[in-house]
């Protein structure tokens, strides 16, 4: 389901949740694109564990990207004006996650909405949370 104009949006509406690719291969691919490779924490479980981490991590800004993708897919005419993500706990590579968002405010004068965002693992532990302000066309 997508929204085209602001009147399509309802308070409390949940965006279609999705399960992103947070495999080690996806994490490595993102890290290579962003220039984050080298010390192994996003590319290699053993190298990450040697640094005291539980396993290889998904880069924090990849989580921001996954949240942005969800918004962009849901509101193809919308524009993310602001996104703020809090890294509550590491997003571990090769663990399954779900990305969710819910509409918490609608400003009909400004043509903007506010979303609460989260990335949780399969244990329902919140790893990343945040908010986004999104401009949606009035017509």
């Amino acid at each position: 389901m997508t929204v085209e104009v602001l009147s399509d949006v309802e308070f409390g509406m949940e965006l279609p949740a999705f399960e992103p690719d947070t495999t080690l291969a996806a994490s490595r691919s993102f890290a290579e694109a962003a220039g984050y490779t080298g010390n192994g924490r996003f590319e290699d479980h053993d190298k990450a564990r040697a640094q005291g981490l539980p396993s290889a991590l998904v880069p924090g800004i990849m989580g921001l990207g996954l949240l942005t993708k969800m918004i962009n897919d849901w509101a193809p005419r919308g524009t993310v004006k602001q996104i703020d993500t809090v890294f509550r706990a590491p997003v571990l590579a090769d663990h399954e996650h779900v990305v969710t968002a819910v509409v918490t405010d609608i400003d009909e004068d400004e043509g903007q909405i506010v979303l609460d965002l989260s990335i949780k693992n399969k244990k329902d532990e919140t790893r990343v949370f945040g908010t986004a302000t999104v401009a949606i066309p009035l017509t």
Partner: protein
Amino acid sequence: MTDIDKLRTEFLDLEFDRAGFVLEADTSIKIAKAYGETRPEFIDPSHPDFQACLPILASLASGRRLPIDFPSLGGLSMDGGKAVSSIAPVKLGVPLTGRTHLHDIYAKSGRSGTMVFLVSRMQLYDNEGTHLASTDSRQVIREKPA
């Protein structure tokens, strides 16, 4: 115990870094595709609104970005989060200037101790001096027990 008020007085809102750079289109496209972006304005250079994806802007705030004379607070430092505020599309392949300051310093205390939060903000400008975007990096330092 860190004197938060003193740090705020000495360091908040003072620009401590100014750097020029160019964000490359190829890099932004690779990042966008790597997180699954499909909107053409982020992955198709021929799109009239082709622009930088938000994660590449967030990446500008990565690393320990503090004033050179900022005191060491000790403790364990962690990446506490990233934020991007978009004012206008950031074009790729053009000169940009990033001006960085400490936007906020605050502490939270709980049963497990005190955590100090340092928010560095980079403001992005084009060659005409137009403010295009701001990126925040939230560094969290867990204080060592006294």
